[in-house]
């Protein structure tokens, strides 16, 4: 069980705690990742492996750095001028922060779904077709149609919108918008999908639908989800990582984390004593 104690987070010790096998299995692997926002040390010495075709949930109280970590994986932190990332973060063994890595290609491989649904002010069709178009993924219109349809289908939205693909994406309900954003993300067939509290702006029924969808997507994608809801983490994820004050406190199989947490902080959080 990979576990990093909050107190002993020195790189040398934590590296030894992760077996080599773990790292080979991992789709995304973080070693001693630190993030600074200007003076603020937002993420401290994080070691974490994310396995392929699993849902990994990142939980923890507000401001614990879980979203920051998520945004490191597809380098969305690049957009913040004062953010600085140190340490090693690999995708299939390739260093994400290597100079040779093209951030545009990286983001095509690591898609993202945001907290608030953010469909572009375009038609539903154009929303989904946007990614394939910019990456030149379709040879012709038929192929593009196919990608759009498949993605909408996969996102469980096709039935609801197939008669109004030309209508504005912003006209859909909140839950539909979020599934549209998921369809948009999977249209570029990424390997990893990052989800930053994808259900926090949705009502319970829409949430249930999205959670169901996440479970289905696991078959083809590696998913990392940040969530505030421990029930959600328990429902959709196979592995759970608990962050506290910028440090990774504990990571393990979801069942183990929720039934038998090793660290007192984790226990305190999941039993609702703080957070």
């Amino acid at each position, binding site marked *: 069980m990979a576990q990093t104690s909050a107190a002993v987070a020195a790189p040398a010790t934590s590296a030894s705690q992760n077996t080599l096998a773990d790292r080979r299995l991992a789709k995304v692997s973080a070693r001693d990742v630190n993030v600074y926002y200007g003076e603020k040390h937002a993420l401290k010495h994080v070691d974490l492996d994310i396995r392929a075709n699993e849902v990994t949930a990142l939980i923890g109280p507000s401001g614990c750095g879980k979203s920051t970590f998520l945004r490191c994986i597809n380098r969305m932190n690049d957009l913040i001028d004062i953010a600085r990332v140190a340490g090693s973060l690999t995708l299939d063994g390739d260093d994400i922060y290597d100079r040779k890595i*093209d951030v545009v*290609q990286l983001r095509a491989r690591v898609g993202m779904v945001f907290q608030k649904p953010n469909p572009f002010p375009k038609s539903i069709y154009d929303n989904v077709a946007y990614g394939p178009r910019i*990456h030149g993924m379709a040879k012709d219109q038929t192929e593009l149609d196919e990608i759009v349809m498949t993605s909408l289908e996969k996102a469980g939205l096709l039935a609801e919108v197939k008669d109004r693909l030309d209508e504005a994406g912003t006209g859909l309900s909140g839950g539909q918008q979020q599934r549209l954003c998921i369809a948009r993300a999977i249209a570029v*067939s990424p390997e990893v999908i990052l989800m930053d509290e994808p259900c926090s702006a949705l009502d319970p029924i829409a949430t249930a639908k999205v959670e169901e969808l996440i479970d289905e997507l696991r078959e083809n994608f590696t998913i990392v989800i940040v969530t505030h809801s421990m029930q959600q983490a328990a429902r959709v994820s196979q592995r759970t990582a608990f962050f506290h004050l910028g440090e990774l406190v504990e990571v393990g199989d979801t069942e183990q984390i929720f039934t038998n947490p090793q660290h007192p902080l984790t226990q305190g959080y999941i039993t609702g004593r703080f957070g």
Partner: protein
Amino acid sequence: MTEMVEQTSAPAADAVTSRLKRRYAAERRFQFMGMAAIAVALGFLALLLVSIFAKGASAFVQTQVQLEVTFDAGILGVAPGADRDTLASGDYLGLAKAALWSRFPDVSGRAEKRQLAALLSPSAGDALRDMVLSDPNVIGSTRKVWFPVSDSVDMTNKGYLPRDPAVEGARLNAAQMGWLQSLEDGGVLTKRFNWQFVTTGDSRDPTQAGVWGAVVGSFYSVLVTLLLSFPLGVATAVYLEEFAPKNRWTDLIEVNINNLAAVPSIVFGLLGLAVFLAVFGLPRSAPMVGGLVLTLMTLPTIIIAARASLKAVPPSIREAALGMGSSKLQMVTDHVLPLALPGILTGTILGMARALGESAPLLMIGMVAFIVDVPSGPMDPATVLPVQVYLWADSSERAFVEKTSAAIIVLLLFLAVMNLAAILLRKKFERRW
């Protein structure tokens, strides 16, 4: 889904690379276009400023010649003991001419002497008159005095006109060039600071024309504008922001203000002509009327700025004041206004800067007249700096191009000072709630 992944992630690697190359090329092109747009705009600004400063800087100096003058009562036609008016009526220009002739004793013959005298400015006698008026006893004595030269000589000496009389466009003939050369060699021909330009009013003669009249006219106009638009603007803003009920009447006022802000300035000029001049019978060309027109024009700007800074004062301050039992007016005068004042002042200064640079509406109310005297009050006929620029730009004399540019420099200096004041004010009192 799996098929799609294979199908799309498997295309030949070089196809992906070449596509990426194209995308990055487009990215660079786009970024370059943005930079180029800024460069073009700033380049134009630089071109404009450089061309104006290059043309105008020389107007602040004036070519002058130093001559030895004998204050000959015979030439002057007045005696030292005469009263002021008689003293002032003496032939001082004749005195200056005589001084020049005596420097070139071999010049004889009426035509030649006239050509020599033409080197001097028609206002060459003024300095002598001032000397005599301040001390009549100089009559009879001999002094060294600096005289302004005519605009042809000035322009030639500054290099705007060809020195070679054979070249087209030259305004001095060979003999005049010879005299000029001899004065230069004698070290008595130099460029000195042009006090006349910054202390006198307009004139038909470019060497005598100055901007002071226009500066004073601008001052009175902007002063009237400030005195009227500041209280009016602040009162309106306070009413709309703090007191006015939300109803159709206040909506109407708001819509009105927003639209007035975008009405072309010349329309305000038409209003001034039809109302202030024709109906109220106010005098043409007066800074007072100019100020009234500019007030109506700048009022929306000030109101909008004042409202924005009143809005920026957090409601908690208002609640605190009301909670202490102060009346609404006390809340405004004691708490809200002082906090909003820096913002209001900044907006006002910017509005005044705009009023200072405005000319179109003032053309309508007759501030384009040719006015020599420096105005002594807001009811006197006057012109303003930007209109002076317009008037001089219309003149055909080469020397006025230089004067126009110089007047623009003066105008830009005033604007720069005002904008700087606004920036400093904003910096000093900037507050984040």
